[in-house]
């Protein structure tokens, strides 16, 4: 008879790995299974932005605390993941965008994000690399970025140090409920645990199906691009009012260009591909904001999945009707806020009262309310 673990986490991305880490530090015997290496999907290929200005209003309190976690990653994770805390600017180039920015920044400020509105000229003082075409900017001191591709290395070391059993490159294919808890069917055989956390990113819809739960998850295919190393062109995180741009320059000189322009592909396999005209659109926007980027060469472009629930708010909490089963995913600004939400979930699993409420999925399991206008 194989070991009965206290907890099995299916999916070793930022959500699953952080949940596993804090559960193990809380005294549990934890196993993580992932179909690939840790943090090689969304958690490893996203733009690494740690911003409030693209975060949903309801998530601002979580994102602020998560930002603090990222800023101190070396202390709790053991690796700094290349985190840089810096100013962030969200730009408006037209009257319409200025109106949108004013409204959105106001809502986020009400939720606790320290965003102030400044003129384009003031923004130029903060970011000399900026174009002079911005009319208005949202300015936030709580911003920054991480090197997303280091996430797997960081968590791998931390989880092993915490005594977590890692089963990488080991796809799970089913979950059975047993008298003692759960038996997860994996390529390397069954893994048994008293509790289960489903943390499979865009694949949680299928995993929830194993437990008989219908939780529709939309898959976004976000396009990203990076330049070769160039001389310093910018020192802040730069976005635009509607959230469709993110720009930052890493210390080694590359500039990552993101913003969630959509490529094509499916979570069910096959190659994902970028739509060249959307890549060009994203790059035009980037060069419009930071003109010096024109001189750079494009080194690489790629796509990464992002999961979204029907209300675009997180699915984090117990799975209704199934004792000791939990889900975490679709956090929206998942890389920014994931660690804090996962820590809250670990608290709940450990029987502690979470500091902030989770995002239980009961709301997503009822028939969809009338479409919003």
């Amino acid at each position: 008879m194989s070991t009965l673990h206290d907890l099995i986490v299916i999916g070793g991305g930022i959500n699953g790995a952080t949940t596993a880490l804090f559960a193990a530090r809380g005294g549990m015997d934890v196993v993580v299974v992932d179909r690939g290496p840790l943090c090689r999907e969304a958690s490893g290929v996203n733009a690494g932005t740690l911003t409030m200005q693209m975060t949903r209003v309801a998530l601002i309190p979580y994102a602020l605390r998560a930002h603090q976690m990222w800023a101190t990653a070396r202390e709790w994770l053991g690796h700094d993941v290349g985190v840089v805390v810096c100013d962030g600017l969200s730009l408006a180039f037209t009257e319409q965008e200025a109106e949108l920015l004013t409204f959105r920044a106001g809502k986020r400020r009400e939720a606790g994000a320290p965003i102030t509105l400044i003129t384009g000229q003031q923004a130029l003082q903060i970011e000399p690399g900026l174009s002079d075409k911005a009319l208005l900017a949202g300015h936030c001191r709580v911003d920054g970025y991480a090197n997303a591709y280091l996430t797997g290395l960081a968590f791998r070391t931390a989880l092993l140090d915490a005594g977590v059993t890692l089963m990488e490159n080991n796809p799970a294919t089913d979950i059975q409920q047993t008298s003692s808890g759960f038996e997860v069917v994996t390529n390397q055989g069954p893994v048994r645990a008293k509790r289960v956390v489903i943390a499979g990113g865009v694949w949680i819809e299928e995993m929830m199906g194993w437990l008989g739960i219908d939780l529709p998850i939309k898959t976004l295919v976000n396009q990203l691009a990076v330049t070769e190393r160039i001389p310093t062109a910018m020192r802040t995180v730069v976005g635009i009012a509607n959230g469709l741009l993110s720009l930052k320059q890493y210390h080694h000189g590359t500039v990552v260009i993101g913003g969630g322009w959509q490529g094509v592909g499916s979570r069910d396999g096959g190659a994902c591909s970028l739509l060249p005209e959307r890549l060009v659109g994203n790059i035009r926007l980037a060069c419009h904001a930071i003109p010096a980027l024109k001189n750079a060469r494009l080194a690489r472009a790629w796509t990464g999945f992002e999961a979204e629930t029907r209300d675009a708010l997180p699915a984090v909490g117990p799975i209704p009707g199934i004792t000791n089963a939990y889900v975490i995913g679709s956090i929206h600004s998942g890389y920014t806020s994931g660690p804090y939400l996962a820590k809250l979930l670990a608290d709940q699993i450990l029987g502690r009262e979470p500091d902030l409420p989770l995002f239980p999925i009961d709301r997503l399991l009822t028939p969809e309310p009338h479409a919003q206008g």
Partner: protein
Amino acid sequence: MSRSSPHDFDVLVLGGGPAGMVSAITASQHGLSVGLIDEQAEAGGQIWRAPWAASSGKDASPEVRDGHKMRETLARSNVSCLFGRRIWSVTDQYRVEVLGADGVETYQAPHLIVALGAHERVIPFPGWTLPGVMGLAAATIMLKAHGLAPPKDWVLAGVGPLLAAVAAGYARKGHPPKAIIDLSGPSDWLATLPSLASRPGLFKQGVGWVVSILSSRIPIYFRHAIRRAEGQDRIAACVIGPVDQDGHRVAGPELSLDCDALMIGNGLVPGGEVPRLLGANQVYQHELGGWIPDCDRYGRTSLKHLYAIGDGAGIRGGAVACSAGQLAGLAVAHDAGFIDAASFARQSVQPLTENQKLAAFSAAMAHMIRLRPAQVASISPEAVICRCEDVTRQDLVCAAKAGARDVNQLKHFTRCGMGPCQGRMCGDIAAEILAQEHQVSRQAVGYWTARPPLRPISLQSMLGRFEYSDIPIPKPAPL
């Protein structure tokens, strides 16, 4: 970028080397409209590279004559030549983005033949990134296209027939290398002789090379390899040492050779990025240079209407590339409904037979330039493997110890392969190091996911003329 009809041609051919030219001409002869795209101003690829107009043509080599002949055939054909265009993206339904003199252009066709050739394999040693150290492909371009003379004291090193070709080529122009450092021994060269029996033309050419080299009295160090290059701002000397037939360092004196340039080549790696980008099945074939698309004998990949031929589909050399070009040209004509099955079968007989005749020689040459795992095991810890990102062998070994088991994880842990060359220089070696560290097969460590752009391009060149209002900004994310 929108257009009324999505298709510009019946078939697009990427790469104007022997495989690409022949396939384009063949398909065109059977009535298909063909677009042939190449980055260079003229067709020819590496082996048939067109000499620069002002360079001397009096001692034209057989390759130069073959290249001219094929360029003439191409000029008489109906193939639309889209030269001077850098391919940066290939997506579904065979949409190809290029960057030309007038900016970004898009071409689309229901069939795609990929014939983008190979790139050089670099086996790193300390100092290989010093100015003055260059690859044999670059040396060949200087020789063939520009007739440029190397610096006075230059050393030639590496393995395989290109070594002899470059040595003889420069010797004939009065610029013999100071020394030839050959990983092979005379017995390796002799072992290829039987396979040459079927290729009298090449045999004659080979004899010509030997005569040129011997008459120039160039010292040849068989079973030797470069240990390191030395110099402050550029190469001043290279240090060589003895190796065994697998490339293992063996005991024996090191020798320092003063030089201003070192030209080095350790074989070729298939440039299979486009089939990989599109998601075609890949197989690892050590003797054919590494990871290649899984193809049938007509070049059909696992993806419908995608064909891969030439050295990019496995290192087989220029002669095989020609018959492979004919076969792919016929296959696409058949698959697109321009010729019937009987005609396809009849016309394939000759190129298939030709390929069979060439097989022994092509395999012997590919074997000579194969990667010897011991060459990689001998790379010293401080040697830079990824020169774009300054990643040493030691960095890769540490990442393997930290748990990186496949090459994409290795890339994340170290940045190896993240630079502008996208791992073309270091990919084969980094994967070999990782496989050796874990004592697993090359299949087990995989290959780097291919990403656009296929070659670096400037953002400026992608932008075109635009107003802010032209940018199709998607609708705002939810608040």
